[in-house]
């Protein structure tokens, strides 16, 4: 039984004058001219026919074509034809149905009246009465059954923990946030080539050279190799020493024009690696932050807010480039700066 039966026919009171529906009906061509109706019918059938052709084409392309790494051109043709066939099969049905509805199906205006959202007074009173009865029966609100109320509220409050604790717990057993401020670079650790892990001699880094660098021993890590790599990757560049403006306090961080900077953008952490040899600019491909390697990797363009962290380097007895220490600031997005 519906409680608003009583005012099914009650119409919303108008707050403004009803402009009404124009008293005219424009018939479509297909309504008047049997030839136009026949034409619309054929057009609709043609669209459905197109769909049928598409289905056949997709199946034919799948059956006769081949998808293999041996023949890329054939693979491209096959996938293209299957996709095109499916597209025709779907679009034919859709456009045919709409064309049918627009040109041939019954065409007359209808008015549907809106009814008030508010329930009748009896229905509202009845509902309130039921709520009151329920409250009275349960004893809630008149100071009794404290144990029931307390245990129910506790149960409701802690129930989400059954989902949240395992979910958060699975994010990792290590909650030492200070690790985010450090990478695996240590004093004396050699700079090695990504991905081979071969150490780099200072004499091999000719002017204008760029080396993509990972720390020595990264490839031997058994766990968290990608996490460590994501924090530790470095770009090693040699500039003509005359072009390099060494930053105050970093006089011994470079070697004869060779400088090493973190490859992780200080904006949102994309790998910055588009190095332009002539301008010494380093461009981040994500949001076009540009860093000037000749001037301490300062930001010269784009949304990044602070320079790329510099890795202090030196050369060991055998002529290989080594790190003097870890980065002196957190790498990556500027957010971590605030943890310092």
């Amino acid at each position, binding site marked *: 039984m519906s409680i608003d039966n009583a005012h099914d026919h009650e119409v919303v009171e108008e707050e403004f004058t009803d402009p009404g529906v124009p008293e005219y009906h*424009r018939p*479509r061509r297909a309504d008047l001219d049997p030839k136009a109706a026949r034409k619309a019918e054929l057009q609709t059938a043609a669209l459905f026919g197109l769909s049928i052709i598409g289905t056949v084409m997709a199946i034919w392309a799948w059956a006769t074509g081949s998808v293999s790494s041996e023949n890329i051109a054939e693979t*491209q043709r096959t*996938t*293209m034809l299957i996709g095109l066939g499916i597209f025709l099969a779907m679009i034919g049905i859709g456009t045919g149905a709409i064309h049918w509805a627009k040109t041939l199906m019954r065409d007359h205006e209808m008015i549907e009246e809106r009814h008030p959202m508010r329930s009748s007074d009896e229905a509202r009173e009845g509902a309130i009465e039921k709520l009151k009865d329920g409250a009275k029966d349960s004893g809630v609100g008149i100071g009794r059954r404290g144990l029931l109320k307390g245990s129910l509220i506790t149960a409701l409050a802690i129930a989400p923990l059954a989902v949240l604790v395992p979910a958060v717990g699975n994010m990792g057993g290590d909650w030492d946030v200070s690790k985010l401020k450090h990478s695996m670079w240590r004093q004396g650790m050699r700079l090695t080539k990504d*991905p081979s892990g071969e150490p780099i001699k200072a004499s091999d880094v000719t002017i204008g050279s*760029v080396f993509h660098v990972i720390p020595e021993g990264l490839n031997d890590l058994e766990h968290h190799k990608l996490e460590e790599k994501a924090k530790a990757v470095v770009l090693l560049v040699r500039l003509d020493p005359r072009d390099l403006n060494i930053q105050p306090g970093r006089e011994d961080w470079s070697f004869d024009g060779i400088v090493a900077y973190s490859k992780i953008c200080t904006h949102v952490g994309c790998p910055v690696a*588009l190095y*332009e040899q002539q301008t010494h600019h380093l461009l981040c491909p994500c949001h076009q932050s540009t860093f000037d390697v000749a001037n301490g990797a300062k930001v010269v363009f784009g949304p990044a807010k602070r320079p790329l962290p510099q890795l202090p380097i030196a050369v060991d007895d055998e002529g290989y480039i080594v790190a003097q220490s870890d980065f002196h600031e957190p790498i990556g997005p500027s957010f971590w700066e605030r943890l310092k």
Partner: protein
Amino acid sequence: MRRLSLTRYHRAAPLVLLFVLLAGITTAASFVQSTPASATAEASADDISEGSKLFAANCATCHGLDAQGTEGVAPSLIGVGAAAVDFQVGTGRMPMQASGPQAIAKTVQFNQDQIDQLAAYVASLAPGPAVPDADAVDPALGNAANGMALFRTNCAMCHGSVGGGGALTQGKYAPSLWATTPTHIYEAMLVGPQSMPVFNNANITPEDKRDIIAYLDEQRNGAPGGAALGAIGPVAEGLWAWILGMGIIVGFTVWIGVRSS
């Protein structure tokens, strides 16, 4: 003026214009052209003197009569080696038509003999990287899988993951590598032309360079997944998706809403 204002354009004209624009953007990335370089021959004294004449006639205006360079205009060519000359002249980048942010690959202005003579002259000034021999750049001898790992680390950030090219700053760009000859790819890594950094043989060994060439050679077979749109990344793909994809949806919406005549 009156005639012009009376001209009625077809109502599909903006649409056609849009398609031309999209097609233009898509193909613009891959217009770089190259001509094949032949194997190198030993340079003779004749070659050097011929090269010296060619240099004086075609290059000395900017690079100076002794190839010492001109401050702010053109770099010194002493010590750049034959590989740099073979790349710059062999791809038509030099002589430059006009100074600008990018040295564009154009129609090559010299035949291979003349390029070899120029290279011999520049190589005679000071030792520098030589033109690689045919075996060093033969893609059939390289390991494309290792080449992919190296390309992803060292090259893909500028040239795109399959070598389609990409934009740099201030109007510069990394060109597509699909039409570049193996010899020119090798030389570019060796000498670091224009904005490109140097990848010397200690950084990427000659075998590794050949692996990279093998990987790029594999990409010339095309992409299996359909139209690659020049493989220049999200800009071309986004333009197609937003303009063509959204355009189709808007068009259908209008058609569904309009009364049948």
